[in-house]
C-alpha cells in the first residue's frame, strides 16, 4: 500500500500539452494571484478572516454561497460556450476544435457544475440571507453547522475546479451512469473526481436542509403562524425537506459506485450480480426531487418579487402554499420518467407518466396566481420584475414540452435527444436561474446596503432572454430531427444551421453574464449614491425589509410581532413600522469560528487524497476532521453577548439613517413608487 507515497499522482497527470486547459489554468492562477495580491496590498487579510471566512452570521454565509455560485456560473458558462462552438463547427468532414475526450469531460463538468455547484449554492445563499430575516429571527438554528455546510460545498467545488489541471474530469456525463462509469470502462481518476465532490457537498446540503427545517419551524417571530409565512419561506421549507429526504440517496448511490471502483464491489457492474438499473433508480430518486429543490426557491422569489413590484398582496396565498407543498410531495413519485426507455412495462410507465403530469396542475395553479397578482396591480418594471415576468411565458413552453416527455410513447421518440436538453434548460434557466437572478437583484441591497444598477440589470435580462431563446429553441427542433445529446461530432449537415443559431444564443447569454459583471462593478463604484438608508428600497411587504440594510448581526433588536402574511406591509399601513424601541436588551450571538473553514479544507484534502489513492493522507485528513469535530464539541464559549449599550448605539445609527431616508424620499415617492415613507 505504501510503495508509492503519492498514490497515482505524478507530474504527468498535468495536461501541459493541452493549450486550452493550460490557458484556462493560467487564467485561474492569475485571478487567484490577483486576489491574493490585492488582499495583501490593501491589508485585508484580517478583514477577510475575521469578517467573512470564520463568520457564523447567516447573512455573510449566504453571501459567500452566492459568490461561489457566481464563480461557478462563469466556469459552467465557459463549458457551455465551448460545447456550442464545437457543435456549431463539427459537422461532416470538420472535426471541430475539441478532441472527444475533452468534449466529453466538458459536458460532464457543465451539468455537474451548473446543478450542484452553481444552482445549489445560489439558492442556498438566498435562503441563508433572507429566510431568518423573513421569519423575524436573529439567526439560524445551528449557525456553526451552517458554516460547515458552506465550506463542504466550497471543498467540492474546489475539487472540480482542480480536476481541470491535475488529472482529468469524468467523461460519464453529469448522471455518471454505470457501467460506463465503472472501472472497467473508465479506469482513470475522472469518475472519482465526479464522485468525491458530490459526496462531500451532498453531506453539506443535507445539513443545510436540516438547519432550515429547524430554523423555520422553531425560530419564527411571535405571531407568525405557518399560514403567515411568506411564500419564499414556504418554498425554502419545502426545499429543505426535499434536501433532507433526497440528498442521502445521492450520497448513497455515489458511495456505492465508489465502492465498485475502489473496493472491487459489484453494485452496478456488468455481471457478477451488478445491475445498473438500481443505479438509475437511486440516482433519480435524488435527481427528480433535486429539480424541485432547484425550482421551488425560484418560485418563492417570483412570489415575493411579483407581489412587491405589483404593489399588491399575493393573489391566493393559501392556494400558493398548497400548490408548493403538493409539488414537493409529488416530486418523489415521478423519478421513473427519466428512464421510460429502460423497458418497464406499460402499467409502470403509464403510472409514472400520469404522476408526472399531475405536477402540471399545481404548477399551473401557481402560474395563474402570479398572473392575477399582477392583475389590477401597479407594476414597476425593475430588473428583478422583468426576470419574473419573462419567466412566466418561457416556463409555460417548458411545461408544455415537459408534458410531451411525460407521455411514455412520446418520450420513446424524444428521450436522449436535443429536445430533452432544450426541455430541461427551459425549466432550469427561466424556471430556476431567472428566479435566482431576480432574487439576487431584489435582495442585494438588503445584504450589502446599496441597490444594484437597474439599467444594467435590464440589459442583462434582455440578453439572457434573447440568448435563451436562440440557444434552446433550435435544440427543440433538433430533437424532431433525431439528433441525440452529447454529440462531439455529427454527419448530418441538416443539423448544423440550428447548432450555429444555438451558438449565437450562447454569445447573447455571454453578454448577459458580462452585463451582470458590469452591473456589479458599476453599482459598487456608485455605492455611496445608491445607499439604501431606509432598509426598504422597494416598498417591500415582508419582514426582511423592516431591518436596516445591511442588517446588524442580530437582525432585529426587538423581535417583531406578526399579524399578517405581508407582515411589514401591514405594519406600514398601521403606522407601527420603524418604531423606536423603548429600551434595548443585550443579545447573545454565535462567536466566530475558524473550525468550519478548517473542516472544509480537510474535506478537500481528504477528497483529493482519495481520488489519487494517497491513503496515508486520506487517513490523516479524515482523522483531522474528526479531531476538529471533537474540538468544537469540547469548546465551551461558543457565544458572546452584545451589550445593551452597543445594541442601542447600532439602533440609534439606524434611526438616524431612517430620518435621512425620510428627507430624501419627500416628493419622490409618488413618481417612482419605489421609496417608502418612513415615519420615525
Amino acid at each position: 500500500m505504501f510503495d508509492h507515497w503519492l498514490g497515482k499522482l505524478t507530474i504527468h497527470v498535468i495536461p501541459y500539452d493541452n493549450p486550452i486547459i493550460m490557458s484556462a489554468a493560467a487564467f485561474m492562477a492569475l485571478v487567484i494571484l490577483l486576489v491574493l495580491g490585492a488582499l495583501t496590498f490593501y491589508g485585508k487579510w484580517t478583514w477577510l478572516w475575521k469578517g467573512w471566512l470564520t463568520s457564523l452570521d447567516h447573512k455573510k454565509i449566504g453571501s459567500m454561497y452566492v459568490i461561489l455560485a457566481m464563480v461557478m456560473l462563469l466556469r459552467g458558462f465557459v463549458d457551455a460556450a465551448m460545447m456550442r462552438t464545437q457543435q456549431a463547427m463539427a459537422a461532416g468532414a470538420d472535426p471541430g476544435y475539441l478532441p472527444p475526450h475533452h468534449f466529453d469531460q466538458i459536458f460532464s463538468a457543465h451539468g455537474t457544475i451548473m446543478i450542484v455547484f452553481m444552482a445549489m449554492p445560489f439558492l442556498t445563499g438566498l435562503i441563508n440571507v433572507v429566510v431568518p430575516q423573513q421569519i423575524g429571527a436573529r439567526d439560524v438554528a445551528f449557525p456553526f453547522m451552517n458554516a460547515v455546510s458552506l465550506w463542504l460545498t466550497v471543498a467540492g467545488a474546489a475539487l472540480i475546479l482542480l480536476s481541470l489541471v491535475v488529472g482529468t474530469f469524468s467523461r460519464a456525463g453529469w448522471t455518471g451512469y454505470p457501467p460506463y462509469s465503472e472501472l472497467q470502462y473508465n479506469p482513470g481518476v475522472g469518475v472519482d473526481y465526479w464522485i468525491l465532490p458530490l459526496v462531500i457537498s451532498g453531506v453539506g446540503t443535507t445539513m443545510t436542509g436540516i438547519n432550515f427545517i429547524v430554523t423555520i419551524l422553531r425560530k419564527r417571530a411571535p405571531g407568525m403562524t405557518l399560514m403567515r409565512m411568506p411564500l419564499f419561506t414556504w418554498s425554502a421549507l419545502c426545499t429543505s425537506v426535499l434536501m433532507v429526504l433526497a440528498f442521502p440517496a445521492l450520497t448513497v448511490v455515489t458511495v456505492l459506485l465508489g465502492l465498485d471502483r475502489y473496493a472491487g464491489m459489484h453494485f452496478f457492474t456488468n455481471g457478477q450480480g451488478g445491475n445498473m438499473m438500481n443505479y438509475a433508480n437511486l440516482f433519480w430518486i435524488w435527481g427528480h426531487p433535486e429539480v424541485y429543490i432547484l425550482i421551488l426557491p425560484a418560485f418563492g422569489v417570483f412570489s415575493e418579487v411579483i407581489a412587491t413590484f405589483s404593489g399588491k398582496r399575493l393573489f391566493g396565498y393559501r392556494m400558493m402554499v398548497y400548490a408548493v407543498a403538493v409539488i414537493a410531495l409529488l416530486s418523489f413519485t415521478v423519478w421513473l420518467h427519466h428512464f421510460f426507455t429502460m423497458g418497464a412495462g406499460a402499467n409502470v410507465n403509464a403510472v409514472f407518466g400520469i404522476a408526472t403530469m399531475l405536477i402540471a396542475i399545481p404548477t399551473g395553479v401557481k402560474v395563474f396566481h402570479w398572473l392575477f397578482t399582477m392583475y389590477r396591480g401597479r407594476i414597476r418594471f425593475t430588473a428583478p420584475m422583468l426576470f419574473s415576468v419573462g419567466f412566466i411565458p418561457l416556463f409555460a413552453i417548458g411545461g408544455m414540452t415537459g408534458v410531451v416527455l411525460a407521455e411514455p410513447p412520446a418520450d420513446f421518440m424524444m428521450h436522449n435527444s436535443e429536445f430533452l436538453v432544450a426541455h430541461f434548460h427551459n425549466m432550469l434557466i427561466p424556471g430556476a436561474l431567472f428566479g435566482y437572478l431576480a432574487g439576487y437583484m431584489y435582495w442585494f441591497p438588503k445584504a450589502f446596503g446599496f441597490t444594484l444598477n437597474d439599467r444594467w440589470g435590464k440589459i442583462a435580462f434582455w440578453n439572457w432572454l434573447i440568448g435563451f431563446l436562440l440557444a434552446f429553441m433550435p435544440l427543440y427542433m433538433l430533437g424532431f430531427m433525431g439528433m441525440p445529446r452529447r454529440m462531439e461530432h455529427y454527419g448530418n449537415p441538416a443539423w448544423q444551421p440550428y447548432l450555429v443559431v444555438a451558438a449565437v444564443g450562447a454569445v447573447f447569454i455571454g453578454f448577459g453574464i458580462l452585463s451582470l459583471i458590469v452591473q456589479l462593478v458599476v453599482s459598487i463604484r456608485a455605492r455611496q449614491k445608491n445607499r439604501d438608508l431606509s432598509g426598504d428600497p422597494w416598498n417591500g411587504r415582508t419582514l426582511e425589509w423592516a431591518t436596516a440594510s445591511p442588517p446588524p448581526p442580530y437582525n432585529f433588536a426587538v423581535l417583531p410581532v406578526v399579524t399578517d402574511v405581508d407582515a411589514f406591509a401591514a405594519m406600514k399601513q398601521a403606522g407601527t413600522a420603524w418604531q423606536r424601541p423603548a429600551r434595548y436588551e443585550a443579545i447573545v450571538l454565535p462567536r466566530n469560528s475558524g473550525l468550519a473553514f478548517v473542516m472544509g479544507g480537510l474535506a478537500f484534502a481528504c477528497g483529493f487524497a482519495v481520488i489519487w489513492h494517497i491513503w496515508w493522507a486520506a487517513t490523516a485528513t479524515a482523522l483531522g476532521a474528526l479531531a476538529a469535530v471533537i474540538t468544537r464539541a469540547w469548546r465551551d464559549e461558543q457565544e458572546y453577548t452584545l451589550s445593551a449599550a452597543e445594541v442601542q448605539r447600532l439602533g440609534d445609527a439606524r434611526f438616524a439613517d431612517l430620518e435621512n431616508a425620510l428627507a430624501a424620499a419627500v416628493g419622490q415617492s409618488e413618481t417612482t413608487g419605489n421609496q417608502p415613507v418612513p415615519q420615525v
Partner: protein
Amino acid sequence: MKQETHRRLLPWPVAVTALLVSGCSPAHWPVLDPAGPVGLGERNLILVVIGLMLLVVIPVFVMTFWFAWRYRASNRQAVYAPDWSESRGLSLLFWLVPGIIVAGLGTIAWFSSHKLSPYEPIETDATPLTIQVVALDWKWLFIYPGQHIASVNRVVLPIGVPVDFRITSDTVMNAFFIPRLGGQIYAMAGMETQLHLLADRAGTYYGENTQYSGRGFPYQHFEVVALPKADFEAWVKTVRDRHHPLDTNSYARLARPSVRKAVAEYAPVKPRLFEDVINKYVHPGAATIGTTPR
C-alpha cells in the same frame, strides 16, 4: 482548406439558407415523418399533447403581455386594487382547468402506453420476423436467428412485416433508436429488451445509439433498409451464399472496440450466439464466449 475557413466565417447566411432549405425537406424531420405505424402513433401523440397544452400556454402568453402592459405603473387609467387577493371562483378555476386537461392527457397516457408499448406485438396477419440486436463498442450487430445470418451496422427489413427486435448489449448501456420507425429502448448487458416495429414504406432510414457510450459514440449509427418482401428474401440468399461465418472467434474480433466499422454481413451464425452474449453476464460458466475488455 481555404474554403473551409471561408464557410466558417459566414455562419449566418449559411444558417438562414440551410434553415429554409431543410425546412422544406421532410427527410430531415424523421420524428415528424414516420414510415411505420409505431412511429405514426408516437408522432400523432406528440402533436395531440402539444395541441392540448396550447389550451393553457396560449392564455398564459396572452395574460402575461396583457396584464404587464395594462397594469404598468405609468398607466393611471387602470384599476388599482392593492388588497384584492382572494377569489374562490378564480382559484377553483385555476385548479380545474389544468386538472381537466391533465385528466385528458393522463387518459391518453394510459391507453397510449399500452398500445405503443415496445413489448406489444403489432397486430397484422404477417408472421413477425425476429431480429436480435447486440450493441457493441461502437457498432450494432443484427442477428437473424431464423435466417442464420447476421449483419453489422446495417439492418435489412421486409416491409409490411412486423419486426420483433430482441436487444442486449455486450458493453455499456446503449439506446437503440430508429426515429422514422418508432421509439427507442435501452440495450443493457445481461438483459434483453424488446421493440416491435414495422416499416410500411420502402426506403433507407437512419438508426442510432442515443445513449452516450464513449469515444466512438458519435459514429455509432446504422442504416435501416426496408425492402419489399421478395427483395428481402433475395438479400438473405446473397448473404448466405457468400459464406462468411460468425463464430466464437470472429465474434470476439468483432466485439473489440472499433469506430466507424464498415457494414459487414455474416452467414452462417453460431447458434444461440445472442443467448451466449446475455449469459456471459448472468451465468458466466454457461457461456462459451469470453468478455471483451476495451
